[in-house]
């Protein structure tokens, strides 16, 4: 029987607005992460929002989100679309940070409180293929 990597990230939020919310989600490939990480979070167009939601929906395993009436919100793309977009985006950005970013306390500890240059993730332009 083969090995299945089903490790998940448990997102717990410090923001009081999200108190009690627990989200479990898997990681994604570097390809997908680079694709969505290059978006300007303050200026997302419709296509980018759709891609973020679709990507996160595939990674989302479970959450304890409920409607005000007590009905559980399904951890699916439809469930995401049914929520406030700002709320969902905060969850998605927190997930992206949890997967690919160095936690802030550790970053500050390693840099001794000094500002290190941000390690950027430039997308390198590949040279065109030579004609065959």
């Amino acid at each position: 029987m083969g090995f299945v990597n089903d490790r998940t990230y448990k997102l717990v939020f410090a923001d009081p607005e999200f108190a009690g919310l627990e989200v479990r989600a898997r990681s994604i490939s570097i390809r997908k992460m680079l694709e969505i990480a290059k978006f300007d979070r303050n200026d997302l167009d419709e296509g980018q929002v759709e891609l973020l939601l679709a990507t996160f929906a595939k990674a989302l395993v479970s959450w304890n989100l409920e409607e005000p009436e007590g009905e559980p919100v399904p951890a699916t793309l439809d469930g995401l679309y049914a929520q406030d977009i700002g709320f969902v985006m905060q969850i998605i950005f927190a997930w992206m940070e949890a997967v690919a970013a160095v936690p802030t306390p550790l970053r500050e500890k390693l840099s001794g409180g000094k500002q290190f240059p941000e390690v950027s993730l430039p997308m390198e332009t590949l040279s065109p293929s030579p004609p065959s």
Partner: protein
Amino acid sequence: MIVRLCERFGCLPSALLEEDAELLRWVRLEALTRPAEEVAHE
């Protein structure tokens, strides 16, 4: 960055891009342990 990591790990970009995005966190973490000048020159 992708090409540099491929050189480092001895793999093709196509293989690297399919790796878990968690690798990006380790790369960033490793960069934080090196002198800033060294990181800036990359």
